[in-house]
């Protein structure tokens, strides 16, 4: 059966897509290079942490490699990768990341990093919106990033996050209020 035509994606060639689907790692690397900026920025906004963003970016591309055979080109590859990254963050690995048994090492690091982030937030008058978003509590940050930046509906976010749409609305309200407070400083 002939494969369906792929939706053109300016950042990834159809040849590379087809080759990667057949298991060509070099073609997949070219796809990675063309898409990593968008995936990484999304990961950065979702996690609010450059270190976690690197881990999420890697997880998303490894997942993409596994699932590439199911990509039928009904949307642009970038759109597919975007959804996949959100799914990896919200549905799969977030719980694992929280309970991966890394507390012995991580707690000390997280405390050190958290203290420094909070301190720099108060001291830096030139803090931009990205940093303000990163400083939001996780639920509020995810609701804001997915709804206000990427256009997900309350219901979609609720479904992915395992909370109610009302909760998403409350988190979104808190996020906006907090960001406005920061901008008013």
């Amino acid at each position, binding site marked *: 059966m002939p494969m369906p035509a792929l939706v053109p994606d300016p950042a990834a060639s159809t040849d590379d897509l087809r080759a990667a689907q057949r298991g060509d790692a070099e073609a997949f690397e070219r796809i990675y290079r063309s898409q990593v900026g*968008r995936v990484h920025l999304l990961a950065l906004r979702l996690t609010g942490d450059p270190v976690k963003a690197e881990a999420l970016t890697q997880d998303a*591309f490894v997942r993409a*490699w596994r699932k590439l055979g199911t990509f039928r080109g009904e949307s642009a590859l970038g759109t597919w990768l975007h959804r996949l990254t959100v799914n990896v963050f919200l549905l799969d690995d977030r719980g694992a990341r929280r309970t991966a048994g890394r507390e012995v090492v991580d707690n000390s690091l997280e405390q050190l*990093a958290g203290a*420094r982030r909070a301190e720099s937030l108060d001291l830096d008058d030139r803090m931009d919106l990205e940093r303000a978003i990163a400083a939001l509590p996780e639920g509020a940050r995810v609701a804001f990033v997915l709804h206000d930046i990427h256009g997900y509906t309350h219901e979609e976010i609720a479904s992915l996050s395992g909370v109610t749409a009302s909760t998403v609305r409350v988190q979104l309200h808190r996020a906006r209020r907090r960001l406005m407070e920061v*901008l008013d400083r």
Partner: protein
Amino acid sequence: MTDPRIPDDDPRLRELLARLPDAQEPARDLWPEIHARVEAERVQELPVAGGARRGRRMIPLRFAAAAAIVLVAGTATLTWWSRPTGFPVVTDSMATATYSFASYERSAEELSTLLAQRSAKLDPATREVLERSLRTIEEALAEARAALAREPASAEMRAFVEAAWRQKLDFLRRANDVAATWVL
């Protein structure tokens, strides 16, 4: 035209959102680690050798998670390593030859160099926390590698070493993040 997603009363927020970039490259190249993980999966997907079970089987993902837990808990006895029945053993010499941790080693070296530069400016107590944690992880990695050397064809041991490498790289990335904010 107003954006229905943004409240009408915060035009500044709407304006800022419109100016946000849509891409940002990571600070370092993540491909070597992604490539290593992809290649590792190729090995794990090889057919199981021998016996009646000749289907394609995957090492359960929870194995890697369990390995990480054991690593960080500092378990040294490794009695847990007694291989449970049912794990595939890769005996294909080609698979053994193509499997490499070189990418992990390169990334670890790069991150360690960066951390050495940054940690010089940390206060002694913080540096001690990082060094102690890193020693624990490196000891566990050394033990995992020794076990793999004893059973070089074991997919289980390979997965365990891979989990140890990922644990080390994850720690180094986090430590570098802490050190960077300290320096700034």
